């Protein structure tokens, strides 16, 4: 119901990519991935093939392939769709990765809220074992054994960060590690580990099914191939779309029916808030990157409400390890609340923007580094939205608030299946934007 255009994965035959990959030497598998130019689809965009190359080179007996299915960025739900519709492609991708780097075990770190999919995924894994595509001697290859198990996350946003995810897998607090060493050298249980996003792994299968040239043929120079986008908010047709990298934001808005937007959060809470005068921007790593989340805010949205909501999210989801992230997000949140009341002085706003800039450079991980983005975007592009004088809460604002809540409710709804919603009618969505 949420797939809105043609998704390449639908046309990839199961195991075609895996079989093709297993016919090659591991080294040449890695070269093909590098050749394709595939970049991590979780948001950071690190070249997948290079990551594999490092892990293959690293010494360690028990290498691990981890599929990051902790899809936690507010407004992204494309991994959920991939896992629900094409789980084989993801497991194939993991198997190819294992073959390439010499790993014997794989773990899917599944977002707590996706627990309803676990049974289906386990069944899929079992089928693959029965078919000889998982477990001992995969596809009849004497010297290649690899199996996958599913590990449930517990709802912390930061556990989508690869090193925090590994800590969590090891039973520790989900806190990002110091790097170096990177997980490709010292990862899960101190062995070389690769952590790849669900979508990246599915693209790997597609690349081996269709060839790396096919993938490189689409997209831009720095961002080859295609990207799944989760589009939500004030649009007529919310859902999952596939576009080649380099597609302009206005094209995407047109497709989804959100051309009259006031602002678009590209990349979720940790991304940037794009104003209408920049809707011509291209979605790619050279211009405006995204892990797949596109949240559209219509004309009637109060962007300070939006910023407040995102900042609350970060204040709560910071692991708390770095002072500047743990407390910085609280201060930005307090600042937004002051702004809403028209009581933030220019001096304080300047202090907060300066603080935001420090958060971007001094935090240990991506969460902290990107957490002030939306705040800074609002101040930069939507300064008119900030009341200049103290305001009293009137009926109009109350209505605004209610509307705003509804918007986030609709975003939250997109995270869930109907069955999930029925089961958790009163449940709170810890990781999504709270309603």
């Amino acid at each position: 119901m949420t797939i809105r255009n043609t998704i390449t994965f639908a046309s990839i035959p199961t195991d075609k990519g895996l079989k093709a990959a297993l016919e090659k030497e591991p080294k040449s598998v890695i070269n093909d991935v590098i050749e394709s130019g595939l970049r991590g689809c979780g948001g950071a965009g690190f070249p997948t093939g290079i990551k594999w190359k490092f892990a293959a080179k690293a010494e360690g007996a028990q290498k691990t392939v981890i599929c990051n299915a902790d899809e936690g960025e507010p407004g992204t739900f494309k991994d959920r769709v991939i896992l629900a519709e094409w789980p084989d492609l993801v497991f194939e991708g993991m198997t190819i990765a294992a073959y390439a780097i010499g790993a014997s075990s794989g773990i899917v770190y599944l977002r707590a809220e996706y627990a309803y999919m676990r049974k289906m995924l386990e069944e899929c894994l079992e089928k693959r074992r029965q078919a000889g595509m998982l477990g001992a001697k995969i596809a009849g290859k004497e010297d290649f054994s690899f199996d996958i198990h599913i590990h449930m996350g517990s709802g912390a946003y930061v556990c989508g960060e690869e090193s925090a995810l590994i800590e969590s897998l090891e039973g520790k607090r989900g806190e990002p590690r110091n790097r170096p060493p990177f997980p490709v050298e010292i990862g899960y249980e101190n062995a070389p580990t690769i952590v790849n996003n669900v979508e990246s792994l599915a693209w790997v299968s597609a690349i081996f099914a269709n060839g790396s040239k096919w993938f490189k043929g689409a997209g831009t120079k720095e961002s080859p191939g295609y990207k799944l986008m989760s589009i939500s908010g004030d649009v007529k047709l919310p859902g999952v779309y596939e576009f080649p990298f380099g597609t302009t934001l206005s094209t995407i808005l047109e497709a989804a029916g959100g051309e009259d937007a006031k602002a678009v959060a590209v990349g979720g809470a940790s991304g940037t808030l794009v104003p209408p005068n920049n809707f011509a921007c291209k979605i790619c790593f050279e211009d405006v990157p995204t892990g797949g989340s596109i949240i559209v805010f219509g004309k009637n949205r109060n962007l300070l409400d939006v910023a407040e909501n995102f900042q609350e999210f970060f204040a709560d989801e910071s692991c708390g390890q770095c002072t500047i992230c743990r407390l910085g997000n609280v201060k930005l949140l307090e600042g937004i609340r002051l702004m809403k009341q028209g009581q933030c002085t220019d001096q304080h706003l300047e202090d907060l923007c300066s603080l935001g800039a420090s958060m971007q450079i001094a935090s240990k991980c991506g969460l902290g580094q990107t957490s002030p983005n939306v705040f800074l975007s609002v101040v930069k592009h939507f300064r008119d939205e900030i009341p200049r004088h103290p305001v009293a809460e009137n009926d109009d604002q109350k209505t605004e608030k209610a509307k705003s809540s509804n918007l986030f409710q609709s975003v939250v709804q997109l995270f869930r299946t109907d069955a999930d919603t029925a089961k958790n009618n009163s449940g709170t969505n810890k990781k999504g934007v709270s309603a």
Partner: protein
Amino acid sequence: MSGKTKTATKTAKTEMITITIDGKEITVPRGTTILEAARQNNVHIPTLCHHEDLTPFGGCRLCIVEVEGQRVPVSSCTFPVTAPVNVESTSDRIRRSRRHTVELLLSEHCGDCYSCLRNGNCELQTLAQECGVRDYPFGHPTEKTCSLDLSGTSLVRDMDKCIQCGRCIRTCEELQGIGRFKFSGRGYNKTVSTYLDRGLAEVACINCGQCITRCPTGALTERDDTPEIWAAIEDPEKHVVIQTAPSPRVAIGEEFGLEAGNAMTWQLNTALRRCGFDKVFDTNFSADLTIIEEGTELITRLYKALVEKDATVALPQFTSCCPGWVKFMEHEHPDMLPHLSTAKSPQQMFGSVIKTWYADLNGIKPENIVSVSLMPCTAKKFECSRPEMTDSGHKDVDYSVTTREIARMIKQAGMNLPELAPSEFDDPFGTATGSGIIFGATGGVMEAALRSVIEFVTGLKVEDLYEHADIIPVRGFEGCRYAEIKIPETVGPVPELIQHLVPNWDWLKGQTVKVGIAHGIDNARKIIKDIAAGGKFSECHFIEIMACPGGCLSGGGMPIPTTQEIREARAKAIYEEDKQYGETGRARKSHENPAIAKIYKEFLTEGPCGHKSHDLLHVEYTQRGKFMTDATTGGEDVKNGKDKTK
């Protein structure tokens, strides 16, 4: 324990790499962190969560530096040198971000510097100055929001001052292997917590206070007993005496601006008298007494095991003068308590003797004596509060105070310690021996015991076997040490003092006495594991264990900060003082102490381990276990629950 040793061994054969920091060329072994490289070359980078004894954490983000090729600055405490890069330790955005970090810390640090025990020795104060904090753009709370944890006898925890650097967590986990603190919660709810956030008295904390000496602020402090002591001094009815342990004497100068390693023993006597203490005694007297009692106990155990073939005798015998170690055993190895020597610690032996023998000799009612001890230790406060430490019929030691507390008293009395004239200790205990002094360093109790045991058994002078009577094999800072002492084929006569216990030494002829030494509970655990596995420590006869890394000289009550360099300087001062005793004709062996001979002649007339000794100088321990009951949570539930702090 020592980060330095680890790095040195790890990088001994690795290649050297030249980097530049702020334009200055620096060559370091591959793998050295940028912070280490900078410090070795006098480039100052501010830090907060970093402590050289602990694993780098990289959480405070104060030490960030610009590294060529890195998109954003990196934390220099965790970033290893692996390539010849350019590093900038300061830039506009780095200075700004450091200032922001400190401003944020101040926004949650309920800081009333004037009334804080750490006023003047607080890393947050220093950083605020260094980083250019001039106002509080993000606020600065003045109202307390957390209640003080005053549940313990030794430590006070003030979470309003905690800045979550995690040094207490790493100290307790890495150095002590105990782990009483953990981070709990997330985001703005994150905090440093104990198991179920209980008070320190309700968790299996051993009160060693190592967390205090590594806390950058006043969030962890000793329980301040000085007001009670001033009150006792002011009370004309009270006869207030103080015993001073060797470690505080070599370190208290640091509180008055001296370099580490300057002993202030004799100036301190003057200062304490001027504070109003009626008598100043030397804990070394009771350290010597401990050696005699504990050594005799060891000889008795060995005789029973080797000659009488009594299989029930617990060997190896562990020292019991460290109250942190004793409490650890009570919590975690209650089944091994018979291995602990029953001899009380020097503090408690002195306490018993002061309120009995000394009171009698001087015609003072024991209830009018206020007995204070100056210790390097916070666990001593717990020890003197144990209900069993009342063998004199009163609380044997009324107050145990730390080096830091006594330094504050001296400052309050308007004295500058280093400028004072030296003076002697008071009689009848006089000045004790060098053996008592070395109790302060790891291996010191063992060396002191061996000096006496060797002379007792061989009839020879220790100097004939070890130059200057320095038993070098048991010295040093290695975490777990093992040594063997060969008893010659010719033995001497049994000294009169213990003739009632053993008839002769023939059974020890040619035997090898095996001893072990550990400091830091994490190392003690290794020894216990080795014993359980039947390793070489299981064959030991006697093992000395001190809870604090380095021994008492870096105890939880000592001046802050502590580093390996400071510990080494204090150790040097301790051994220097022992050496001076030899040179000035003072005794260096416990059994040569004239006051010891006197007490066995006049008071403990049945000799060491005799009836009276047993009543006053020995003690039994409590099987505590790891699961503590708590009235507020309902004892049973807690007992059955799992200890999540482990």
